[in-house]
Every structure is written in structure tokens, then in C-alpha cells.
């Protein structure tokens, strides 16, 4: 993987410098307005979406018991220390437009639809760009995702209006994108922890460079805009998207604000992103960075993807049945047998993913914010693109919320909505409400339900 040495002048924030003296490096950067971080009456609410691939095995995932007195199951056992911060949401289906054979036909496999629709609640665009299992093809997702919608409302003052991170995502197709600026405009996750570190903590304290950047931006923007008026309509869409992206990054790249001096950069280590055996290390670094970014109010909206849907990631670093797991995740997840090597391997992989979820919660909980913790002030959505791994159902999606967004959502609950009347449109509306975007009445495909989930807030 490429290691980037930033050679902007005069302060040279190479990664090696930062590793040795992170506090010293950040001390020279002007302070953020500290009032925005702590000491306010209203807590600052954040959203972080964690996605993992290939669905679940319901029988070993869902808790048992009542709404406020429930017991965790095999996969979710690692979450035990945070049980009172969790909300299990059972009985949510994906909306009709995302279901098989619905509303004009099936575009994309369940994996693809569940990925493109995860945060957009919309079907995929029809097209032949991407082939998926189940003999269908599709284009990209067809609308803006909820993280972007929320970022537009609460994130515009932050250095990063939103941050997309990934762990071993690698893939560049529809099954590898959950965040969409707009239809056909997926946002690729940043996969290199070193690059993320530089982006978060390597701001340049060089007024001259920043001024030059502003001027070059202006020239580039003007020329791109002029060309957008000349090229045909199809091509104009492409240039317009580029203009939007430029506007999104401009403020951060020319502004004097960097990480505040109270913002502690996480310790980094070298990791080889091409080695499946270093999945844990890569993931931990990205989670550390995500949490630091939230803690420092560099952003209030993060998505963090593990691998891609239909993930064929290897798990040779996990033991099952006394030996290292040989097969790939997707293949293993398709074994219908109720016992045996694959059954056990699948369970080990699932439990491992929930251990990573628990790690994230522990990191969030480790930051104190007044009387509460960063975890309390955050809403975490834990999601995967399909329901049952073997059958690819898009009902009873294994959603878990955590944190509560500063008390907006009562946690420590297992909510069973029963027979699938509630859909993902409602869940996304609920998330927006919890993040302070209270005027949102519906989100996603019109075939879905309006309003938030009942009994949640």
C-alpha cells in the first residue's frame, strides 16, 4: 500500500513525525472553538454507522426475554458490558421497492439491494454496470443516503461534513458502497488509516498555501462550471458532481482550523492492507480514528464499512474446530447444514464481528463529555445488508442501535415489533430525529412507510 509523505511547506507532517510526537505536532495548530465541544447544555449528537457483510443467523443473534429484561445470544455475547446502551430492533423489513420481484422487477441481488438501500431506503438504478448473484444486474443506488442528509443539516460547520471509512473494502462496485451523495454518486470509503490520520491531524498551518489553494479552487471551479455548460446533458451530470465535491471540501482545505489542542491523535502502527490476516489491526486503527474524529468534533457523521457485501474475506486468523478457518465468509455463509465445520466457522466469524462492535463501543465510552460519555451522545447503527445469510431474506433485519444520542433514545431495550409492519424508511427517519433533524417526515422510496418507528424515542 502506498505510504504518502506530505511535502507541503513549511510544516512537514509526515506520518513518522506524527507517530513520535502527536501532541507536539498538534499543539501548533489553532484551536477550534472549544465551546463547540464541551460545556454546552445540549450535548453534541453524533451518528456512526457500522456495517458488516453477509447477514446473520437469526437463531443465534436475537436476544430472548422482554423489552427491558432480555438476555444476549451467542453472537452478541461480546456486547454484554454495554447491554444497557443497546437497542435491538426486531421486526423491521426493507421496504417494498427493495423486496424481490417488487414494483417493476428486481434490480440487483438481495446483497446489492441491501447495500445500496441500506442508508438510502431506495432501490438500485437499473443498469448493467454491476452483476450480482441471482442473475441480475444493476447500477448504483438511486438516492441520497441518510448520513448525507443528516450531514447536510448538522455537519456543515465541521471540518468534515461527514467521514466515510472502510476496512478492507477494496471492492469498487455497488456492493461496496453504502453512502451516497445522490443517485449514482457513491462516496468511496477511505481505507488507509495513515491517510485518514493525515487528513484528520495533518492540517497545514500555512496561510500562504491555504490562500493559494483558495485561488486555485476558484479557477478550477469556474472552468469546470463553464465546461458543464458546453458538454451534453449526460456529461454535465458528471461535471456537476465534481463541482459539488469541490464545494464540499473547499472550506476544510482553505480554512485555518485544524484539530484542537485538546484533540489527542490515536497511536498508529504500520499495517499491510493487502493481508487478510491483519483485518483486526486495520479495523482497530480505523475505529480509533473514527472515534477520535467524533470526539474532536472534526465531524459528527461517520460511516465505517467492514469489507463489502458478499464478502469473500478470509479468516485464517480465527480458529474453529481446532484449526484455522479455511473458506471465505460468503461461501461459508451459504452452507445450509445445521452443524459441521462451516456452521461452526460461520458462528466464529459472526462472534468476531460483534467483538469489533464491542471494541467500538468501548472506545466511544472511554471519552468523557461532562457527565456523560461520547457513547451516550452518539447514535451507533449496527447493520448488515441482508437478514438471514442462507436465505437472503430482507425482513427481520438484524439492526442494533447503541448510545442513545444524548438521551433522545432510551437504551437497554429489546424492541420486538412483531410481524414486520415497520420498515427501514421509518428507522432512518427515527435516526434523523435522534440526531436533531426533527422535521423529517419520510425518507426513502415512496412505497415505504412514513414517519418514525413507534415506541423508540
Amino acid at each position, binding site marked *: 500500500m502506498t505510504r*504518502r*509523505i*506530505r511535502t507541503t511547506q513549511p510544516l512537514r507532517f509526515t506520518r513518522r513525525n506524527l507517530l513520535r510526537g502527536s501532541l507536539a505536532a498538534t499543539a501548533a495548530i489553532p484551536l477550534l472553538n472549544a465551546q463547540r465541544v464541551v460545556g454546552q447544555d445540549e450535548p453534541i449528537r453524533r451518528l456512526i454507522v457500522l456495517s458488516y457483510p453477509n447477514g446473520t443467523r437469526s437463531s443465534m443473534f436475537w436476544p430472548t426475554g422482554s423489552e427491558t429484561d432480555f438476555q444476549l445470544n451467542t453472537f452478541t455475547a461480546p456486547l454484554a458490558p454495554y447491554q444497557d446502551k443497546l437497542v435491538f430492533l426486531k421486526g423491521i423489513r426493507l421496504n417494498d421497492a427493495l423486496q424481490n420481484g417488487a414494483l417493476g422487477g428486481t434490480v440487483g441481488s438481495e446483497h446489492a439491494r441491501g447495500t445500496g438501500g441500506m442508508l438510502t431506503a431506495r432501490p438500485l438504478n437499473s443498469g448493467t454496470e454491476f452483476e450480482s448473484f441471482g442473475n441480475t444486474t444493476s447500477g448504483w443506488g438511486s438516492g441520497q443516503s441518510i448520513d448525507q442528509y443528516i450531514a447536510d443539516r448538522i455537519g456543515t460547520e465541521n471540518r468534515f461534513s461527514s467521514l466515510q471509512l472502510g476496512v478492507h473494502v477494496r471492492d469498487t462496485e455497488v456492493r461496496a458502497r453504502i453512502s451516497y451523495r445522490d443517485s449514482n454518486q457513491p462516496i468511496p470509503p477511505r481505507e488507509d488509516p495513515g491517510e485518514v490520520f493525515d487528513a484528520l491531524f495533518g492540517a497545514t498551518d500555512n496561510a500562504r498555501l491555504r490562500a493559494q489553494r483558495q485561488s*486555485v479552487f476558484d479557477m478550477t471551479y469556474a472552468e469546470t462550471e463553464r*465546461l458543464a455548460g458546453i458538454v451534453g446533458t449526460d456529461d454535465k451530470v458528471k461535471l456537476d458532481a465534481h463541482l459539488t465535491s469541490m464545494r464540499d*471540501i473547499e472550506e476544510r482545505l482553505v480554512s485555518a482550523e485544524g484539530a484542537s489542542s485538546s484533540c489527542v491523535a490515536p497511536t498508529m502502527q504500520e499495517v499491510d492492507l493487502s493481508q487478510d490476516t491483519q483485518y483486526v489491526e486495520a479495523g482497530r486503527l480505523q475505529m480509533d480514528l473514527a472515534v477520535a474524529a467524533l470526539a474532536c468534533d472534526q465531524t459528527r457523521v461517520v460511516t465505517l464499512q467492514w469489507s463489502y457485501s458478499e464478502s469473500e474475506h478470509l479468516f485464517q486468523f480465527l480458529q474453529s474446530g481446532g484449526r484455522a478457518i*479455511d473458506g471465505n465468509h460468503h461461501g461459508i455463509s451459504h452452507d445450509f447444514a445445521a452443524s459441521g465445520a462451516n456452521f461452526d466457522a460461520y458462528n466464529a466469524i459472526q462472534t468476531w464481528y460483534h467483538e469489533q462492535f464491542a471494541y467500538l463501543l468501548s472506545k466511544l465510552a472511554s471519552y468523557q463529555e461532562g457527565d456523560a460519555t461520547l457513547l451516550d451522545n452518539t447514535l451507533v447503527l449496527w447493520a448488515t445488508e441482508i437478514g438471514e445469510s*442462507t*436465505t437472503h431474506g430482507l425482513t427481520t433485519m438484524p439492526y442494533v442501535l447503541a448510545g442513545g444520542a444524548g438521551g433522545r433514545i432510551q437504551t437497554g431495550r429489546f424492541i420486538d415489533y412483531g410481524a414486520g409492519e415497520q420498515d427501514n424508511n421509518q428507522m432512518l427517519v427515527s435516526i434523523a430525529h435522534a440526531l436533531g433533524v426533527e422535521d423529517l417526515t419520510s425518507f426513502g422510496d415512496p412505497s415505504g412507510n412514513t414517519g418514525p418507528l413507534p415506541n423508540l424515542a
Partner: protein
Amino acid sequence: MQRTRTLLTPTLLLLLAAGCSSGGGSGTGDQPSGPGDSSTGTSGGSTGSSAGGASGATTTTADGSVTTSTTTTTGGEPDPPLMQPEVETSCPTQTVSHTPLRRLTRFEYQNSVRDLLNVDVSAVGDIPPDNATEGYNNNSRLQSVSSPQAEQYVYVSETLAALAVQNLAGLTSCDTATTGEEACATEFAQSFGRRAFRRALTTEDQQMFMNAYSLGRTDGSYAEGLEVMIRAALQSPHFLYRLETNPPADPTAALVPLGPYELATRLSYLIWASGPDDALLDAAASGELTTKEQVGAKAREMLASPKAFTALNDFVSQWSDLDELELTSKNQTLFPMYSEDVNAAMQGELPALLNYMLSSGDTSLRTLLTTNLAFVNAPLAAVYGVDAPAGGGTELAQVTLPEAQGRSGLLTQAGFMSVMSHPDQTSPVLRGKFVRTMLLCDPPDPPPDNVNISVPEVGSAATARDRFSTHLSAGAGCSGCHAKMDPIGLALENFDAVGQYRTMENGQTIDVTGEIRDVEDAALEGEFVGARALGEKLGNSELVRDCVATQMFRYAAGRLEGLTDACSIATLQDGFSAADGDLTELLVNMTQTDAFLYKSQVTQ
């Protein structure tokens, strides 16, 4: 010459069914003039009735004979061959489908800045990877610039510009002491700007560059002035996009000839995967790219440059999925010899073979698929079971493999065998699927959602043939698709999951009988034994040549072929066959197609 051919694959059928291709021939009877080509007709030398041909093509689309291909799960019988509608090719082309705006891929960006600035370009790796479809990462439909990408364009331009001005002599020979800084900056803008924007500069361009210069010069220095100019150039849409906004001489013509700079740019990205150099830009400016013949001659000349290797290697490596080698890992207990050193050496095999082919003058597809040469260093030699080359080191040296192994070019390269395998065993399915999709252009459908696709345990049966036998046994419902793949892949079982040669597996002799079924070429259809026989069949097949020509079209044009490309595809396929499958001739032929020489009118 009209040649009826089945040029449509199931994938393309879907494209048409969805109504994605625009145009289809209005049959106006007007003969569009090619570059400098008025009387003698058009590409392919066709003299057939173009109007009729074009509308024939349209009818084929509209009559509903195009359907979505379906997976059969009904029984053990293989599907009958999917009947492709035959399309009358019509030359000359009546219209071209929309010529989409193409952005530089990361690979093209890297080569372009390498040639512009002569600096270490490793920073380019920070630009997000390109989205891929149909096997290639340069499809124009997937090239929207996201925020992280826009951000990296800024950072990377700054990194590269800073490196570039550390060596002013490498950037410009203008002596500021005698000529003056302002004049030198103006000259740099002219020469660098022309190469960065790949055309003559307008006064507005020049002004923009000098404004950028002032930003760095004022309270700064001459060097900083150049540095800001370079940043501005690399962030400009004129660099990042391959703009073809030359206004057409005739706004009503269905086919618009490209301007000379536009042709120069298409040529240089096709042959070099990089921007045009000064010599090529000069040729464009002085009218040396006005006729089709001139374009072809220039292409041939450009193929002699070492830069030609870059593009050809990129195409073959994407086509063969060898670009996935980087992420291919193996079970360390079963394959302890598969080290990082071996993996690194494997990544060098294809480039070494292509290099050899280019320098020896034999760039035929047949050689690529059948050669008995390999390129090894000590660690890789052990995988091949041959002596390490003399001298040691990590460089790869040419060796002739033992005849008994029956190796066959790319098909049995150790790296290729490794990619087309699982971590703990071979995959006859992946190997067969590759041949089916990328050599026969007959992609099997993906598996249905709800079947068990877990790989069989290594211990479940002695040989792969036995382990995967359920795919083909009657009643399993899998054979409809697997009969097209597995019997091909099983012929390669003498080469294990890391490409080592073997005749036994778990104590049993390996049977490498293979079979190609359901293919519209009598010479290809049927049984054969072993890798070399497969390689010979494929290397000598016209159907395979046609398929590879189509694959090259997709890579070169940055899009799937559409109905209006019928003549271009014909030109390409005819030329490739006439050249006995010479891959460099394929590149030259691409420049002779209507798809290459023309663009569509701008529709607002």
C-alpha cells in the same frame, strides 16, 4: 463486405433490452466523410447498402428477440446454446452512440504526471481506486468524482508540484538570468500547459497559468510560481478529463470527425495509457493526423516506444484478473512455499512475458496462450520445479519449462493458477469461468441466491474432479451453467492452487480430460486432454479472436459496445484475424474503427 456475425453476448442483450444504446441508424443515405476520406468509402471497405443494414439492426433490437438470459435450475441437461440474434454489420457506420466524457483513471493519471514532471509518482496511490465493471476499471459510466477523490486531487497535485520544482532544470531549460523570470514563466506555461491540456492553449488558458504564477511569485519566488502553475494544471478539468469539445464543422452530421488534438489524445491513451508528448502534439498541429491512414501509421510508430508496453500490460492484466494477485493468499500449512517473495515474483510474470513478446516481435494471442517459456527468480523457480536462474537476485529470468509439464502460456502461469484457485485447493470453476467469459465471450450467469456455494472440503474426495462432481451430476440443477465451466477448468488440474505441476492428487492420478461444450465453433467444441491442448484450441480459434477483439474494444473505448458499433467491431475482428491474432495489430486496428475516429454530436 458485409459479414454477419454474432457479436452480442448475454450481457449486451441486457443492455439492449434496457434500451441503453442510442442511435441505431436513420439510414439517411448521407455518407459522412472520414478524416480526409471522401470517395473511397469507409472502414472495412464495405460497399453494402448502409441504410438497409442499419434499419435491419434496429429491427433486430425492437422485435423482442432479445431477452434476459436465464439460469436453468430445472434439471441436469445443459442449456441449449443461447441463440444470439445475428446482426448484419453495416459499414459505414451511420451514427456513433453517445461518446461519453472520460476522466483519467488513476493509472492514466499516474502515467500522465510521470511523463509531464519526471518525479516520483507514488503519491498518486492516494487517489481512490477506480470503479470497475465488466472486468475493466475505465468505464466512463462509473467515473463520478466524489469528495474524497476531489480532495486527493488537491493534495496529490501539491505533493507532485513540490517535488517537480526541486529540479527546475528538469522542468524548463529557460535561463531566468538571461531571459527574465516573467518570460521564462510564460514559456513554461506554453510548453507545459500544452502537454498538460493536450492541445494548443487558448489566451484564457495562458492567462489562467500566469495568474497561478503570480500567486506563487508574489512575495515568493520564481520556483514557487511554477509550483502553483503545476498545481493549477493538475487540478484543472482540462487535465483530469479527456475533453472532446472541438465544435463540429457540420452541426447536422451524424458522425463528427475528431479534431487533430483529440485524435492525438485518443492515440496516446490507447497506445501509451498516457498523455501525448511534444512530438505527437507537433504532429497533430502540423496536419499529420488528418487521414485514417496517417492515424494508423502514427499508432504503429508509437507502438515502438517502451511506453506501449504499459497500456498493453494494463489491458491484459485486467482482462486476466491478474491484478488480483496482490490480494491472493493461500493456506500456509498446505502451501508453505507461497511466500511474499513468491507472490511478488508472480506479479512480475505477465509483464515479463509481454515484454519478451514485444521485444521478440511475436505478440500473437496464440503465443500468449501456449508459450512454454516462463520468467522466474529463485523463489518462483522452486514453484515451477526448475533450477533457479544463475546469478540470484529478485529479477526474473527467462527459462524454458520442461516439456513434460505441458504448460500453456498465461493459462498455466503460476500466478494465474493461484488467482484462479481457493486458498486451499484449485477451482476448476473459476478457471473454466475465465475461459468462458474472457475468451469465449459467453459469460455464465451468476449462481442463484439460495444455493450452497461453500467450497467442498479438501478432504471430501481425492481429486477436484470428484469434489466438484455434484455440479455436473443429473438432477442437481447446477449443470446448466457448470457444464460450460467445470469441464474446461478440470483440464488444468495438473497445476495446483499455487501453480505447481503435479500428476497425482491425494494418491490418485489426475485425469485432465477437458471439454468445451455449447460453443458455436466446431473446431472448439468437444473433448481434449490437458492444458496445452486447450491453449492450442483457444489460440487458433476465430471465435476466441473475435472475443478478445471485443474485450479490447471495451477497454479501449471505456464503454460496452452498442448497436451502432457493429461496423467498428467488424473492423476490429476482421483486422485481428487477418493479423493472425497479433495483439499490437489489434491496437492499430482500434484506431481504424469509426468508434475511434468519430464522436457523436453534443445533445443538450
